[in-house]
């Protein structure tokens, strides 16, 4: 009985591990190929490079005309960090009002907030573009950051409302007795106790903004404003299939921030998905 049970477990382990490795193979192969000399990438499909070189990284970094990938990384970081801070501040403010305060039209507003979560972004795309265009904001970071300062990611508001509701109300009440107003309760009680929800918001906002290709492509038009995804696309279009090595090298670099965040905050990320159904 135990033997057959152990055998079954072993088979499961082998299958799960084997299948998992097959799934990861393309990514590992890309990392390995980025370290191979160009001529070996296609002739040597193995994972272990016969010859290790950093030429692809040096060549890729300088890839596009007079700007380097360093600038693309800087641009991506600036946008992602501002988006992250914007969501943290404004989504938590709105969530606090919904979770802890009373005001006219609260139910209507809450329903509207839930509605915006389901709304495909394309429905607001054209008029938003018209607005930003008329403000002369196209080819600046403003169309990518200002919406985050206006709490347009309803999903995170919802996430925080749920979390704030779990914080005991007695804490607010005793603070009110001590003469604290709503603003101090928000700053001194709710925010410090809501760190897990804030962290989830920060992580996912950063990762999604980092990977967001669509709006960055629409709003950023000159090469010096380009972010990493746009830089990669430019590289693909200009050099294309003639320099896969360098293209892979920059692709690998572009994934490093996300992978780093994942390894530091794995628990928050996996739990965030499991408990709230955030899409990956």
């Amino acid at each position, binding site marked *: 009985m135990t033997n057959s049970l152990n055998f079954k477990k072993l088979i499961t382990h082998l299958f799960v591990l084997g299948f998992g490795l097959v799934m990861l193979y393309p990514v590992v192969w890309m990392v390995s190929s980025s370290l191979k000399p160009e001529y070996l990438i296609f002739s040597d*499909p193995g994972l272990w490079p016969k010859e290790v070189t950093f030429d692809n990284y040096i060549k890729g970094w300088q890839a596009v005309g007079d700007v380097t990938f360093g600038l693309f990384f800087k641009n991506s970081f600036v946008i992602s960090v501002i988006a992250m801070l914007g969501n943290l501040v404004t989504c938590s403010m*709105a969530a606090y009002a919904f979770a802890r305060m009373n005001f006219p039209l609260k139910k209507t507003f809450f329903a509207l907030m839930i509605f915006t979560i389901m709304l495909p972004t394309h429905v607001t795309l054209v008029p938003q573009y018209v607005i930003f265009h008329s403000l002369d904001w196209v080819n600046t970071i403003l169309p990518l950051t200002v919406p985050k300062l206006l709490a347009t990611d309803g999903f995170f508001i919802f996430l925080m409302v749920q979390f704030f509701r779990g914080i005991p109300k007695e804490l607010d009440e005793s603070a009110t007795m001590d003469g604290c107003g709503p603003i101090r309760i928000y700053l001194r009680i709710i925010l410090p106790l809501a760190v897990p929800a804030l962290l989830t918001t920060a992580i996912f906002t950063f990762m999604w903004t980092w990977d967001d290709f669509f709006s960055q492509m629409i709003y950023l038009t000159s090469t010096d404003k380009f972010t990493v*995804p746009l830089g990669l696309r430019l590289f693909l279009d200009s050099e294309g299939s003639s320099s896969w090595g360098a293209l892979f090298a920059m692709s690998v670099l572009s994934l490093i921030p996300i992978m780093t965040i994942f390894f530091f905050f794995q628990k928050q990320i996996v739990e965030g998905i499991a408990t709230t159904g955030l899409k990956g």
Partner: protein
Amino acid sequence: MFQAKKNYLIAYGFLLPWLIGLIGLVLGPMISSLYLSFTNYDLLTSPEWIGIGNYTDLFGDRVFKKSVEVTLVFVIVGVPLQLLGALLVAVLLNQKLRGLGFYRTIYYIPSLLGGSVAIAILWKNIFGLDGLINDFLAWFGIQGEGWVSNPNYAVYTLIALAVWQFGSSMVIFLAGLKQIPMELYESASVDGATAFRKFKSITLPLITPVLLFNLIMTLIKSVQVFTSAFIVSEGTGGPSNSTMFYTLLLYLKGFSYFDMGTAAAMAWLLLIFLGLLTAVVFFTSKYWVHYGD
């Protein structure tokens, strides 16, 4: 009374950024895009009312029909495969396996990275003529072709990319499976139920609420797929419109041909379609979703 009014003001203060965003960037634009969908508008000259012209043009447009077809194939083939993969691996991982955390990480990584331009570039390469897939097929003596450049196969390479990212659905399934009481399985074992029987009579019914959630999320995400198709087809939707996904055509209409009216009309059709789809899924769910008594 005075205090209550003061607190209302403070509450609206907290809501202010969100309210400005709601009116200025969501509801306002939504209504205005409905209006623009009935106009000819190229961004430079002011919109010209043409009634339902954009809509009738779209329904007569061969490329539009193709984009609907491509997107539907992507959804109808891709979504069940993603959910099936996610559920099967979640069930395998749910049997008190050692190293669960490690396995979960392995399967989640594709979801983590999959939406990026970098992975789309990788995909373009491995499904190319000299790519990994053909190296693999060569072991079996099969001469592969350039999968991404063949109109018969290109969409399936993108489906493969979507299915590859089943990890986030799997994590959600896994969390749901952990909620199923172990006693149910134990007493079923005592009664001599086979593993398949236990899956069919215990796991499957009890996981249906999570399945419903995953189904809706995956559907909404799949209908709006963009980045992978854009990168793999280099922004063209080719070869022969075989990867012309709905959102890609919407983008091209609006931002390559500057036909903003048609782009707005496509956006509203998308909204209506997604609304109907979600409603249908919810409506039918009472026939197959099992809620605990």
